[in-house]
């Protein structure tokens, strides 16, 4: 899993933020490339550039090894992300990719999966119940 962070700050600002603050939160600083999107051109094609504010808002895109977007989540600035949910989605997408199965709502590793096909029609209730969503 490769993380890439992107903001409209310059790569020079990224260097100072890494040195002055992030390295004090994370030993050695954050271990992923910090990308600069000055002008917001990348943010525009990902639908996260706010023209009025001139910044990229909080958007997270999960991209598979073929370069296909599998998931996206976009939030306004005051609310941070939930990393546990990102990790759960990565586990679920990897499982789907490896097995061809589907993961119902609330799936985490070890919980029942669905094997799509004619035999499953009308039978999901036997495998999945609402309490499994939590």
């Amino acid at each position, binding site marked *: *899993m*490769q*993380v*890439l*962070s*992107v*903001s*409209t*700050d*310059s*790569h*020079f*600002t*990224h*260097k100072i*933020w*890494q040195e002055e*603050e992030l390295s004090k939160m994370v030993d050695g600083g954050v271990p*992923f*490339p*910090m*990308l*600069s*999107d000055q*002008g917001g*051109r*990348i*943010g*525009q*094609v*990902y*639908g*996260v550039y706010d023209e009025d*504010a001139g*910044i*990229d*808002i*909080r*958007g*997270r*895109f*999960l*991209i*598979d*090894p*073929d*370069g*296909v*977007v*599998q*998931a*996206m989540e976009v939030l306004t*600035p*005051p*609310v*941070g*992300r939930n990393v546990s949910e990102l990790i759960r989605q*990565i586990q679920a*997408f*990897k499982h789907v990719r490896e097995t061809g199965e589907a993961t119902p709502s609330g799936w985490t590793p070890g919980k029942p999966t669905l094997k799509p096909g004619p035999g499953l029609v009308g039978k999901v209730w036997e495998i999945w119940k609402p309490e499994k969503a939590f």
Partner: protein
Amino acid sequence: MTEEQQPCVQPSKGPIGVGESDGSEPSRDESKQEERKMIARVGKPAPDFEANAYVDGAFRTVKLSDYKGQWVTLCFYPGDFTFV
């Protein structure tokens, strides 16, 4: 990696193959700006781009397509030194 001298402003391509004439020069007229709308969709190829980056204590350009074959989490955020 050897420390290379780099110019103060290093152009990077930004989005690749999106509303650009041929990618050889950045487009500045407004009609081109119009074409740059959201094209990222789940289940569709992620729009490729090239950006300047700070990585491992150095400056370099990073292309999304360099990471083909790996899972990638692309995280946009409002700005360095902001609070959340």
